[in-house]
């Protein structure tokens, strides 16, 4: 697995990088690649999303430097900003791994494994996607697949400012509480250290669902 750290990136530039790598992975010119980045503040709306879930006017958001973009991943509306790690696994799914929802479960398992490295016991919620701790959502997922190569991925809240989540209805679901590792552990965490642990989790968790850790 190749690893790319984009640092603090502009959403559209990171999207371009994802698409370029996706084409290379699809064509066999490049091995599976994990991109990890933090985004400058942005609200994105996926294919299942609706601008109705945006609870503030564009002008208000623009004043805070928050851009709003429609994008080609599954899922609804979400927020990205500094202090949140976004993992974009650009992986070629072959043979029995060609199970899109199996891949979503893989991402959840990676998130659960990552949080266990901090002593946080996380899990999934039946009927919902993402990774949850004590009824609050800490990681959101949404993917795209082209020519059986995945893109988009998972966003995990390490120490972001959580206020912008109140500007949207996250994932289009009423009453979702959003949390972060900082919130849970009551300490500011080192983002570079978190990147290293997240990368490790992607290496540790097997891609195929049968071998994945126990689920609720």
């Amino acid at each position, binding site marked *: 697995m190749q690893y790319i750290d984009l640092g603090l990136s502009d959403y559209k530039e990171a999207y371009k990088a994802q698409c370029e790598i996706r084409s290379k992975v699809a064509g066999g010119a490049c091995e599976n690649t994990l991109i990890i980045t933090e985004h400058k503040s942005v609200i994105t709306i996926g294919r*299942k999303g609706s601008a109705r879930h945006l609870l503030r006017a564009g002008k208000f958001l623009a004043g805070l430097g928050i851009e709003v973009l429609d994008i*080609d991943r599954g*899922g609804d509306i979400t927020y990205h900003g500094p202090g949140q790690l976004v993992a974009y696994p650009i992986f070629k799914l072959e043979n029995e791994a060609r199970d899109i929802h*199996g891949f979503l479960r893989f991402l959840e398992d990676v998130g659960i494994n990552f949080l266990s490295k901090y002593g946080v016991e996380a899990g999934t919620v039946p009927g919902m996607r993402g990774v949850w701790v004590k009824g609050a959502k800490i990681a959101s997922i949404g993917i795209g697949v082209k020519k059986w190569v995945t893109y988009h991925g998972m966003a995990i809240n390490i120490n972001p400012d959580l206020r912008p989540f109140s500007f949207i209805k996250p994932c289009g679901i009423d009453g979702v509480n959003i949390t972060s590792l900082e919130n849970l552990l009551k300490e500011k965490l080192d983002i570079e250290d978190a990147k290293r642990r997240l990368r490790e989790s992607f290496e540790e968790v097997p891609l195929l669902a049968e071998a994945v850790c126990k689920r609720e």
Partner: protein
Amino acid sequence: MAELKLPELAEGVNEAVVSFWHFKEGDSIKEGDEIVEMATDKAAFNVPCKFSGVLKKIAAHEGDTVKVGEVLAIVE
């Protein structure tokens, strides 16, 4: 004439929503062309066409929910 149907997606996933068509009625299509983008709750993906020919009819439009095995398009 051939019917392009929504393929089996994953265990427990029975339907998807049409995001958009990459082709319009009357367009020529080659086998393997990604013809339509679909979305389930958290995933967006393309469906490749299994046949070459002309896209005769789009049976499911953008925003429509389609069940696995239902017809997406007719290719002639």
